[in-house]
C-alpha cells in the first residue's frame, strides 16, 4: 500500500482514511487495474481517476466498501466525504452491500409498452424484492437504457439483454445462477434502419452495411476523406466549412456548431474536445447505433473538431448503460491509433491528437455538458453555473468544445463534400439530415434518417410502418422526457426546428415514442415525472424539490382517477414556472415540459404557455 497521504487540515489523530480497515484482495486487484502503469506518486491528485476506480470496485465486488473507498482516497489524495459524495451520486454504483450482479430492468416508457411490468413481476418471483437479498444476483428497475427499439431490455454487468420475454428472462437468470454467465443473455433483435429524402442516407450510409470493427472497411467506404481534406485546408478553412454547413448541435439545444468551435479556438491553449456520448434521454438511441455501427465516423468527427479548434486531447464520455458502444469505440480508437489516424503527427501532418474514453455510471444529468465535465473530473455530476461557458472554462478549467455524437458524425461528410452542399439540404436553422429514434407502438421501431421538412406522419407511417394492427395514435412523445406530447392532430408537422417550435414542441434529441389508444397516458406522464424526480442532481431548490412535488401532484391526480382540478392545475403551473425560470440547468428547466404538454391531451390546458 502506498504511504498515507497527509490530509489537509488534519492533526495527529488518525482520520477516517487512516482508520479504515484494509480492502479485500479483490478490491485491491480491481484498483491495480485502474492505476495500471501509474506509479503511486503519479496517482496523487488524479481525481479524474475516481470514477474509473469506482466503476472497477463496483464491478469486482458489486458494491463499494468504506475500506475500498478509503484506499482510493489515499491513492488519489482526496477526502472521504467528497469521494462518498461522488460514489453515492450514481445509480449504477452502490455504497451498501447488495448482490454482486444486478439486473437493471428498464421500466421506462418504451419498455413498459413492451411488457416490462410483467418482467418485473417475474424477477420479483425469482429473486425477491428489488435491491434486496444477499445472493449472487439481484435486480432493480432502471430508467431508459436506450434500447427502446428492441426492448424490453436489461443491463447486466457489462452486457445488455434485449428483446426480453418472460421465458427468455427466466432462462437467462437460470443460466446465470448455474454459473454460466456467458450463456446468460437474451437478444438477437436487430435494429431497423432506414432513410428518406434528399441527401439520405448520410449518417447511416455505412450502418448495417460496413463492418464497424474494421478500419479498412471504413476507409474503403469513404472514411477519413474528410480528415485528409481538412489537413490540407488547415484549421481556419475547416472551421469555415462547418460554418458554411449550418450544422447545429444534435443533442437537443441546436446551438450552431461552428460558433461553439470558433469561440473555443480564440481562447488560449491547451484546449479540449469532448464527445458527449451520454445519450440518456428516454426514447433516444440513435447515438448508440452510430457508435456501435459506425464508430470511426465519431472518432473522425472528434478529430476534425480538434483540428479546427487546436486541441491535442479529447475525451469521449459514454454513458455507463452503453457497454457495447464503449467496446466499439475502444476497438476503433486502437485501430485508428495504430494506423496513424490518432496520436502524434496524424497522417504525417503537424497535427497531433489523441482521445481517451470515459464511462458514466448512471446519471441522466451527466448529459448536461458541465455536469459531464464534473463527472470526468471526479466531482459530483452537478451542472456548473454559466457563464463562464465551456468554450472559455470547460473540462479541467480549460477552453473546451463539447458536441453530441450525431453532431460529430456529421462533420466528416461536411468536410468531404463541402459545407455548402450540406447546407443545401434543408432550410432555415434546420440544415442537413436528422436521425430519429422511433419506438413504441410502431411496426418497425428503429433509427431513421430523414431530410429536414419530412412530415412526422410520413416518418411514422412510411418508415416505421405505422401503428401495428392499424390502431390509432393517441400521442407521440417527441424529444423524450424533456420533450413534449404531440397529439394526432399535430402529426402533419414537418420535422424541423422551426415547425416543431411553432406547435410548442421540440426536435430535442430526435426521439419519437408512439403511444396508441390503449395506453394510459397518465401512467406515462407519471413515469416521466418520476424520471425527473429520480434524475435531478439535487443542487438547486426549484429542481430538487420541484420535481418531487410535480411527481406528487401527478400521482395524486392519477390515484384520484383525474381530472386535473383547478387546485392541482395551479400547483403544476407554479411548479412549471419556477422550474423553467430558476433551475440551474436544462434538466430542471425542461422537467415540466412533458407534464404541461400532456394537459392539453388530457383535457386541461397548462396555464404557462411561455416555455
Amino acid at each position: 500500500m502506498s504511504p498515507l497521504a497527509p490530509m489537509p487540515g488534519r492533526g495527529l489523530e488518525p482520520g477516517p482514511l487512516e482508520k479504515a480497515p484494509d480492502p479485500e484482495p479483490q478490491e485491491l486487484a480491481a484498483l491495480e487495474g485502474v492505476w495500471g502503469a501509474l506509479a503511486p506518486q503519479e496517482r496523487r491528485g488524479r481525481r479524474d481517476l475516481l470514477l474509473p476506480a469506482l466503476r472497477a470496485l463496483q464491478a469486482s465486488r458489486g458494491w463499494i466498501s468504506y475500506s475500498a473507498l478509503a484506499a482510493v482516497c489515499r491513492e488519489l489524495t482526496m477526502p472521504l466525504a467528497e469521494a462518498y459524495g461522488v460514489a453515492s451520486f450514481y445509480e449504477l454504483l452502490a455504497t451498501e452491500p447488495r448482490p454482486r450482479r444486478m439486473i437493471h430492468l428498464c421500466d421506462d416508457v418504451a419498455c413498459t409498452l413492451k411488457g416490462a411490468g410483467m418482467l418485473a413481476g417475474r424477477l420479483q418471483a425469482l429473486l425477491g424484492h428489488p435491491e434486496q437479498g444477499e445472493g449472487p444476483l439481484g435486480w432493480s428497475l432502471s430508467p431508459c437504457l436506450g434500447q427502446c427499439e428492441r426492448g424490453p431490455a436489461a443491463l447486466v454487468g457489462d452486457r445488455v439483454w434485449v428483446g426480453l420475454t418472460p421465458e427468455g428472462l427466466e432462462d437467462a437468470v437460470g443460466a446465470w445462477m448455474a454459473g454460466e454467465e456467458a450463456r446468460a443473455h437474451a437478444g438477437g433483435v436487430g435494429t431497423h434502419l432506414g432513410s428518406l429524402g434528399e441527401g439520405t442516407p448520410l449518417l447511416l450510409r455505412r450502418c448495417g452495411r460496413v463492418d464497424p470493427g474494421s478500419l479498412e472497411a471504413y476507409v474503403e467506404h469513404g472514411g477519413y476523406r474528410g480528415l485528409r481534406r481538412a489537413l490540407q485546408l488547415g484549421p481556419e478553412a475547416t472551421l469555415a466549412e462547418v460554418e458554411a454547413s449550418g450544422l447545429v448541435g444534435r443533442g437537443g439545444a441546436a446551438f450552431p456548431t461552428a460558433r461553439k468551435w470558433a469561440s473555443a479556438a480564440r481562447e488560449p491553449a491547451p484546449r479540449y474536445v469532448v464527445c458527449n456520448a451520454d445519450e440518456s434521454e428516454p426514447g433516444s438511441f440513435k447515438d448508440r447505433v452510430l457508435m456501435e455501427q459506425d464508430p470511426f465516423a465519431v472518432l473522425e468527427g472528434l478529430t476534425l473538431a480538434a483540428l479546427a479548434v487546436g486541441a491535442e486531447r479529447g475525451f469521449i464520455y459514454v454513458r455507463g448503460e452503453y457497454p457495447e458502444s464503449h467496446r466499439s469505440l475502444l476497438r476503433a480508437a486502437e485501430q485508428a491509433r495504430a494506423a496513424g489516424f490518432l496520436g502524434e503527427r496524424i497522417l504525417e501532418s503537424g497535427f497531433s491528437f489523441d482521445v481517451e474514453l470515459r464511462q458514466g455510471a448512471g446519471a441522466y444529468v451527466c448529459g448536461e455538458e458541465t455536469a459531464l465535465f464534473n463527472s470526468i473530473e471526479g466531482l459530483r455530476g452537478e451542472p456548473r453555473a454559466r457563464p463562464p461557458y465551456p468554450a472559455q472554462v470547460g473540462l479541467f478549467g480549460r477552453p473546451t468544445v463539447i458536441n453530441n455524437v450525431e453532431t460529430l458524425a456529421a462533420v466528416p461528410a461536411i468536410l468531404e463534400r463541402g459545407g455548402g452542399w450540406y447546407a443545401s439540404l434543408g432550410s432555415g436553422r434546420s440544415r442537413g439530415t436528422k436521425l430519429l429514434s422511433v419506438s413504441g407502438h410502431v411496426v418497425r421501431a428503429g433509427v431513421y434518417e430523414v431530410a429536414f421538412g419530412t412530415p412526422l406522419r410520413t416518418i411514422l407511417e412510411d418508415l416505421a410502418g405505422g401503428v401495428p394492427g392499424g390502431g390509432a395514435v393517441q400521442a407521440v412523445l417527441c424529444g423524450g422526457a424533456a420533450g413534449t406530447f404531440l397529439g394526432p392532430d399535430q402529426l402533419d408537422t414537418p420535422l424541423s426546428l422551426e415547425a416543431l417550435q411553432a406547435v410548442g414542441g421540440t426536435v430535442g434529441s430526435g426521439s419519437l415514442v408512439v403511444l396508441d389508444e390503449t395506453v394510459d397516458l397518465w401512467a406515462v406522464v407519471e413515469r416521466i415525472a418520476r424520471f425527473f424526480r429520480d434524475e435531478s442532481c439535487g443542487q438547486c431548490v426549484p429542481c430538487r424539490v420541484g420535481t418531487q412535488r410535480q411527481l406528487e401532484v401527478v400521482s395524486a391526480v392519477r390515484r384520484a382517477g383525474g381530472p386535473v382540478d383547478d387546485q392541482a392545475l395551479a400547483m403544476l403551473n407554479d411548479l412549471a414556472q419556477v422550474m423553467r425560470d430558476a433551475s440551474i440547468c436544462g434538466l430542471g428547466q425542461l422537467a415540466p415540459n412533458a407534464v404541461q404538454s400532456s394537459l392539453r391531451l388530457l383535457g386541461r390546458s397548462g396555464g404557462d404557455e411561455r416555455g
Partner: protein
Amino acid sequence: MAELARGGRRDAAEVEIRVDGREVRVPAGATLLDAIRAAGGDVPTLCYHETLEPIGACRICVVELEGSRTLVPACQRRAEPGTLVRTDTERVQTSRRMVAELLQSSADTSLAPDVERYGRAYGSRPERWRPLLDGAQEVEAPTPARVDNDLYVRDLDRCILCYRCVEACGEQVQNTFAIGVAGRGYGARIDAGFELPLPESACVYCGNCVAVCPTEALVFRGEYEMRRAGTWDEARQHVTTTTCPYCGVGCPIELHVQDNRIVKATAPVDDPTTHGYLCIKGRFGWAYVHAGLETGAGQEPDRPAAAGASPD
C-alpha cells in the same frame, strides 16, 4: 478588483448597468447582487454568504436579465456593461415565492428566520402540499437529529441544502473536508461519508459549519439542549465581544451570555482576521470560565453540554 474576469478577458475597471431603471456603476467583477445593493435595492438571499464564493443553489435571489431566457441568480452573475436588470417583476416574485414554499414544504424551517420571512413576504403557501404528502405512498419519515458528540448536533430535517457548511468545511475556509453532499436529487444530504458519526469523521470541531448554517440544521449542542428544555431565550441574552485567550492570533470572539452563563461563542463576520470563523478553542474552549464558580462538577440539564475540558 481589476482581476481577470472568469471568461479570461480583461474588463474595464468599472461597468455601468441599469437596475430597475436606475443607472449604477460598479467595479468590474461585481455581481448583480453587488450592483443591486449599490443602487439602493436588495434581493433576498439564502445560500449566499458574504464570506463564501457564491453558491447559486437556493435560487431565491433570481432576477430578470434582459436577453436571458431564464431568470439569473443575482448573487452569482457578474454585471456586464449595459446589463438591464429587473428585480421585482411578476416572474421574479413567483420564483421567489415558490422557492420559499418548496423549502418550507421540504424542511423544518421554523428556526430559519430568513426562509420564514421571505415566505411571508412573497406569500408562500406551503400548507397546500401537505395533503399530497399525507396521501403519498412514499411518506418521508422524520430523521432523528444526530447527537454523536459533545459539541454540535446535526438535525438534517432542518437542512435546506444551501451548501454553506460544505464550503466552509472545505477549501474556502477550513480545509478539513469532513462533510460533503451525498446522494442525489430529493435524497441529497450532507454527510461525512458512509454516514460516519462525527467523531469517526475528519471533523476537527471548529464549528465553522455551524456558524454559517442558516437553519439550525447544524446547531451547537448547548443551544440544542437548551432549546429542547425550553430554556433557550435570545431575548435574555447579551453579547460581549472579547479576545480569545488561547493563542497569539488574538481572534475577537463574541460570547453570548444568558443568565450570567456563556451559552455560545461566535466571531464577528466583518472582522478582517476571522471573517466570523474560529477554531475549536475559540469556539468551544470557554467552559473553564464556569468551572471555578460552582461546586459539584455535574452537568445540569439547562447547561450547555459543550462544557468539555479545555482542549489544550
